């Protein structure tokens, strides 16, 4: 069964450093999303991406965050200057055009120290 692949599985970074989280969505999917989940809390929407541009973003997705699809397969989330409160699991998801469901990757655990 097709999968959404995320790398790395765990990233530890110093506060103020930049991090890039990578995702390879399912190849024929057209809609891409980033979500995050702070430990023990619910899954929160960050941003959606369609047709090579952001289609929607939440209030969490401030100027420190950016997304891009640099090569037609990878989908990246960049956090420019990490803060302690950015520590969370970050999940990538993709959705096809039809009536199928969203498929989530297994996540990147980001720890900011």
């Amino acid at each position: 069964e097709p999968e959404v692949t995320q790398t790395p599985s765990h990233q530890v970074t110093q506060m103020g450093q930049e991090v890039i989280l990578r995702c390879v969505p399912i190849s024929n999917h057209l809609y891409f999303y980033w979500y995050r989940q702070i430990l023990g809390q619910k899954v929160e929407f960050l941003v959606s991406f369609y047709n090579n541009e952001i289609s929607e973003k939440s209030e969490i997705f401030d100027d420190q965050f950016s997304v891009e699809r640099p090569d037609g397969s990878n989908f990246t989330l960049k956090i420019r200057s990490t803060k302690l409160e950015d520590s969370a699991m970050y999940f990538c998801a993709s959705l096809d055009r039809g009536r199928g469901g969203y498929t989530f990757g297994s996540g990147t655990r980001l720890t900011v120290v």
Partner: protein
Amino acid sequence: QQQVKQSPQSLIVQKGGISIINCAYENTAFDYFPWYQQFPGKGPALLIAIRPDVSEKKEGRFTISFNKSAKQFSLHIMDSQPGDSATYFCAAAAGNTPLVFGKGTRLSVIA
């Protein structure tokens, strides 16, 4: 308007029993209602989903019941097993809009 309210927050069920988790929503534009299962350290995995044109969907031991007029939907796990112990999230979306998640229910199935 965008919230999905999930209850209970935690649930303990005897092996072989029925686990029931409920969700309610306000946005009548929602047209896709999935349930996700999440094990510690893993991403949410789609368990079962329903569209508002049906009132019930069953897959194995898992059943979604959907009440459009009440704007509620629930997950029933029949013959609950210890391997079902996980966190369950309901969610909702309208078209291609982002999923809105409930806060999750931590299910523990005890022998």
